């Protein structure tokens, strides 16, 4: 293959990639553009790709029209607490599964793995009944308790621990390091990529979760950003410009997390996906 045809091929490929990207990004572009329009301009005929007049006021109006800041705080609170608990308890539980021998290990692990195959939608009803019996319905604690102890997290971290040579932990044990010491000084530092993946998955899942909060949260002051946005849509269905502004803002936390740590996102999908 000579260099001319390969550079020609490259131009075609880049052209194709750019066109595909524009198509894929079009809804985001439309969201941005509409969020800066006036409510009449959103549905103007003929349509405008860009706002006639840039209406920054939308971005200040949304905070007063609905308690958007409160919804943000609720989502952040849930995402941070659940992620912390997930990482802490999964990285803990994964250690004996990967590096210790004790009776019942394989059976318990089998229980964990088997539940990964059961969709949450299958057992969400008994779970709801149980949580309501504990008088936890319509609290943030309900969502924290049901999402903080996932089998997926344990499975993911265990995979990472298994990749760490057993000789390393054996040697440390002979040198007198306690099990906690091995966990803290060997396992955790050597499984950073898996932990980063879990942090990201958990944060994104909680932030984007819609059905869980919809089932459990009734009070407005407890609602998460997704529920709040949904409420906004039904209350202000005429003001699409405001809805778009709120939607755009709701994408920022996860969007910036994704852009700054996209390597972990993509590697996480590739490894946990294929090995899982």
């Amino acid at each position, binding site marked *: 293959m000579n260099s001319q045809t390969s550079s020609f091929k490259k131009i075609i490929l880049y052209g194709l990639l750019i066109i595909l990207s524009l198509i*894929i990004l079009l809804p985001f572009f439309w969201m941005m553009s509409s969020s800066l329009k006036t409510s009449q301009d959103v549905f103007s005929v003929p349509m405008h790709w860009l706002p006639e007049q840039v209406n920054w006021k939308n971005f200040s109006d949304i905070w007063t029209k609905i308690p958007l800041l409160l919804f943000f705080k609720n989502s952040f609170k849930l995402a941070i607490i659940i992620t912390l608990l997930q990482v802490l*308890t999964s990285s803990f539980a994964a250690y004996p*599964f990967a590096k210790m021998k004790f009776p019942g290990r394989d059976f318990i692990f089998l229980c964990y793995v088997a539940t990964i195959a*059961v969709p949450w939608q*299958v057992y969400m009803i*008994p779970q709801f009944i149980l949580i309501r019996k504990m008088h936890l319905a319509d609290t943030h604690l309900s969502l924290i*308790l049901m999402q903080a102890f996932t089998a997926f997290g344990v499975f993911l971290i265990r995979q990472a621990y298994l990749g760490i040579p057993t000789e390393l932990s054996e040697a440390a044990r002979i040198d007198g390091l306690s099990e906690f010491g091995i966990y803290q000084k060997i396992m955790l530092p050597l499984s950073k990529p898996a932990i980063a993946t879990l942090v990201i998955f958990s944060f994104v899942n909680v932030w984007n979760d819609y059905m869980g909060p919809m089932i459990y949260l009734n009070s407005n002051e407890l609602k998460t950003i997704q529920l709040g946005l949904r409420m906004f849509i039904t209350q202000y269905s005429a003001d699409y410009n405001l809805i*778009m502004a709120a939607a755009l803002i709701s994408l920022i936390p996860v969007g910036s997390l994704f852009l700054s740590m996209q390597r972990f996102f*993509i590697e996480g999908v590739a490894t946990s996906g294929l090995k899982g």
Partner: protein
Amino acid sequence: MDLEDFKILIEGGAGNSITMTKQKVKNMAMAYIFLLPNLVGFLIFTLIPIVCSMGLSFMEWDSANPMVFVGFENFKRLWTDDTFKISLWNTVYYSVFTVPLTMAAALGLAIILNQKMKGINIFRTIFFFPHVASLVAIAVVWNLLFHPTLGPVNNILRFLGIANPPGWTSSVDWAMPVIIIVSIWKSMGYYMILYLSGLQAIPRELYEAAKVDGANSFQRFKSITLPMLTPTTFFVSIMLTIACFKVFDLVSVMTNGGPGRATNVLVFNIYNTAFINYEFGYASAISMILFIIVLAITIVQFRAEKKWVSYM
């Protein structure tokens, strides 16, 4: 070996085995200390509900009156329940289109991206982004794009000379296709990553050897890429089909199951039955059907995988 040595050996051995069991108990206690924080939460909030879900499907319960055991009544009722049949049909309809189209789109994107070129990672990031974007925000902008009277999509269609473009989410016939389009757009980037790592695992020598033998790029794709990708393809098809049967958010935000029951899918039906109508027993029976379907898909696809997948 004299007696003295022999004594030491026995005592040493016995002493050893005592410390061994002590060590074992200590070890086990340690293991459970590590396990406990997660295990307790997992038992209470995942395992117990899973075990209970089956029992609940044989009960009748509205949460106000006492629970009544009704045997197979709930499952019998499914046979005559139109909403259930429609929701099952809608889910199948959604999956039949979403699964192959998403796979084709994901594979296509992965093949384009599987090149050594500058800046390729930027495109990978762009294609993946819809997958992380939260669904409510996505659903509402697509609703705007597909707005029946004033949306940009219909504006463009009218401009292209189509006088009466479809009403999309407000039309019984077109609401589901809209859901399918948005769903493909949202998830193809995710499966693209899986395909991409599948593609990268194919040894380069195979392509070089085929080139030497004079195979053109279509032949190389047909005889190397596709067969070598079968494990990925099977994995993706299982994941995707299961994901399709669990669809809820998209439907809930974009069409709320409507118009009429046109986009009422299985999980939407479970949600309504349980959390709107408070028929917990009956809703559990529907979720058992969901579980059986998911389980069957997994088993069938793993069986088929053994038969068809070529691992070289």
